[in-house]
């Protein structure tokens, strides 16, 4: 077959190419549609997107988040016993959905992978018309999805994410975090560590080798060094590691008398179990009892590590044993529906969903910019954590932080942790331009309503 360039052919293809180049202007012109903002709900319902890990290492946490989110939707629609709607200090929510629209939800599986999480969030936004995305159990995923929501013009209510970066250098105007962060863990733990173990300890860190691990280690090292501890060594361990024996042996010869495990999930269960098996907690070093610290605890991890957590200190965002009006109401309705107490990741997702709904009611619109404005600087109580402030500068919640300890004599399978101290919020508050949070350069940008 022959291909000849003819004048006519060139002219023809030129005309086609020209039309092709002109076409885009049609597209851009019509991309601004009638909607005032992305996924403006027009019918009698409004759709929320719950993006949680249903497979992978954090699937347990994800399924517990989903339980709480379903419960929150029930309460918003006026079904069930109303839960925290009765104790919430803001009375905007009436139990008739949000702004009179019945709440529906769609779910997605993040698989604890940024790509999969963004794909499922996108499909919820583009296909199902979700107006808000909530959930997640990893900081990497939270930051990725937060960026996506910023671009798409919907609100992101983060689930379990503990890295400083989420509301630090990666903070976004459309993203909000109720959960606490690594800095707060460190600030809450340090005084307790000092009073329990003394001011002249030598700490050895094992750190999961990724953003959250680094940010956790940096925070704990800074806080403990400030009160007189010495950091002997920091060893980074691969996230995929399951056996930590080879990392534990050098600890014994390092002259350290405290081991800090900056691990989460399965990593923490394994490293703690290894450390206990090596008899670290029975050793006397420098004339002191050897101690282990786990900065970030969760009920599901404590259950996984079994009796190895007994006496080990750590911090939490929320614990179901917390005794206040909101907490009691939440634990009661969660327990009645599912026959188990909620985990702290469940609680944060429940609170985030109610907070979003409440902000819509108070703003009188679903427009992300209006909702963001309603959430910024919002002070509330009655969702389980005590008095809380949503800070306007970085969209981070400030509230008391719990210091917990593995219970020595658990009475049942959910009774694994006991609350040692409730660190007051003033002690964990930091400046929005703190160097660990991106310094002065970090900025929220401007809110994006999409469309």
């Amino acid at each position, binding site marked *: *077959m022959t291909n000849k360039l003819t004048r006519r052919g060139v002219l023809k293809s030129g005309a086609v190419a020209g039309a092709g180049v002109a076409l885009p202007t049609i597209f*851009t012109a019509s991309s601004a549609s009638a909607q005032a903002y992305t996924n403006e709900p027009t019918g009698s319902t409004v759709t929320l997107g719950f993006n949680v890990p249903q497979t992978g290492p954090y699937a347990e946490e994800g399924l517990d988040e989903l339980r709480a989110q379903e419960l929150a939707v029930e309460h918003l629609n006026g079904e069930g016993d109303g839960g925290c709607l009765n104790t919430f200090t803001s009375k905007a929510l009436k139990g008739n959905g949000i702004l009179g629209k019945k709440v529906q939800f769609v779910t997605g599986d993040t698989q604890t992978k*940024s790509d999969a999480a963004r794909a499922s969030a996108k499909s919820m936004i583009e296909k199902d018309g979700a107006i808000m995305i909530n959930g997640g159990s990893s900081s990497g995923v939270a930051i990725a999805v937060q960026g996506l929501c910023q671009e798409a013009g919907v609100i992101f209510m983060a689930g379990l994410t503990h890295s400083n*970066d989420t509301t630090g250098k990666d903070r976004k105007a459309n993203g909000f975090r109720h959960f606490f962060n690594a800095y707060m863990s460190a600030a809450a733990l340090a005084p307790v560590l000092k009073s329990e173990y003394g001011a002249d300890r030598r700490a050895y860190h094992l750190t999961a080798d990724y953003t959250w691990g680094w940010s956790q280690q940096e925070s704990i090292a800074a806080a403990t060094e400030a009160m007189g501890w010495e950091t002997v060594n920091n060893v980074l361990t691969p996230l995929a590691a399951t056996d930590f024996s080879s990392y534990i042996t050098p600890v014994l010869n390092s002259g350290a008398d405290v081991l800090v495990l900056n691990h989460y999930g399965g990593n923490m269960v394994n490293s703690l179990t290894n450390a206990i098996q090596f008899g670290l907690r029975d050793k006397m070093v420098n004339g002191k009892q050897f101690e282990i610290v786990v900065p970030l605890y969760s009920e599901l991890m404590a259950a996984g590590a079994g009796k190895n957590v007994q006496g080990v200190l750590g911090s939490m965002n929320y614990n179901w044993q917390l005794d206040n009006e909101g907490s009691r109401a939440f634990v009661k309705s969660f327990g009645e529906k599912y026959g188990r107490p909620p985990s702290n990741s469940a609680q944060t997702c429940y609170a985030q969903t109610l907070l979003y709904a409440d902000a819509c009611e108070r703003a009188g619109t679903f427009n992300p910019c209006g909702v963001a404005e309603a959430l910024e600087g919002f002070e509330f109580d009655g969702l389980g954590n005590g008095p809380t402030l949503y800070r306007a500068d970085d969209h981070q919640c400030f509230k008391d932080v719990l210091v917990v300890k593995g219970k020595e004599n658990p009475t049942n399978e959910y009774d694994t942790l006991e609350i040692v101290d409730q660190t007051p919020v003033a002690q964990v508050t930091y400046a929005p331009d703190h160097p660990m949070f991106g310094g002065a350069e970090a900025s929220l940008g401007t809110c994006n309503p999409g469309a």
Partner: protein
Amino acid sequence: MLGLNKKDFNLLMVVVGLSLFAPFILNIFPKDSAMAFFNGGYPDLMQRFAIFGIFAIGFNILFGLTGYLSFGHAAFLGVGSYAAVWMFKLLGYNVVPGLILSVIVAGLLSVVIGYVSLRRSGIYFSILTLAFAQMMYSIAYSDLFGRWLGITLTNGETGLQVYSNDPQILLGENSPIVPHIFGLEMNARLTLPIGPWEFVFPVGYYFSALFLVLAFYLSIRIFRSPFGLMLRAVKSNNQRMTYTGLNPRPYTLAAFIISGMYAGLAGGLLASMDPLAGAERMYWTESGAVVIMTILGGVGTLIGPVLGAGTIKYMENIISKMNEKLLHEWFGFLPDSLEYSIVWVASWFTGEGWHMTQGVVFMLVIIFLPGGLVEGGQRLAARFGAKSNDTGKTAQPAE
């Protein structure tokens, strides 16, 4: 036409047609109907169809023609994404430099990995490529090079993304702050409501589809070229080829580099649709996914990989979203006991169980249609009396 024989040209036209009308084909159910759940015609999924189609076409040039089974192709996809995002960070949001660099970087990396891995064949080759890809994954995940250099290179687990304080030296006052091609934003779209239907035409999808068509055309040319014949010779009898005095390695290396560049292009496009690059794009399961896509569609066929990529991505995005609540709605008309038992069984295969469905489909295809979906198409065509070379749907396997 275009240097193709009639049959290949028809096949190309089928791909062009599918690409052009995908928004209609994938949105076949009216928007508010109960079946709307099965619509796959939203921008993100259509873009994935096109991009992973490119990835699989490239993989098929190596695996389908030479028979070398690479288990590390996701590494090229990953570096392609990182390269593109770095261009966004340094230059600006125009996707052209990003795409060019992603192809170049993936090409260079495939020279290195290919040169070493191709010294062995068979299972050893597969393991070597797997090892390299896992190495790349670990390096990216812990940002090893970045930490050596004292900068952020891959941003570890969080993934590389663009910040407002990045240099972006080509970013003008009024430039869009999302990926665009000369001002045309990738996430712009035209929505066309016709009666109860709603069709969406996203710019990003058509941009990717253009590359899909080009990639497909190039792949036909390679399949039909003397170079393609050499690659088939490597597959059918490598030893004999060596005895006749031909050195197969330059050919296999060239095929490896070409398929690496395809993967790099796919990675660059992924980043152009969504300006973020994460290390898990390089994880070995991703390398395995492209193998499954190619085999499911039909190894060594021209259109097979595109069909396979579409099938897998559809299952991943649609079946994984069927939750129990939805199943109860669908089967709500049945008596309770029947409803619950059906939902109980179905929930194993939907939602988080979508991998199970993928596995079952893959097994059925491998057992009953060893030639993949393309063989299924051929059999159907034969059954209904159409001459297979006229349907255009089918293609000759490489062997």
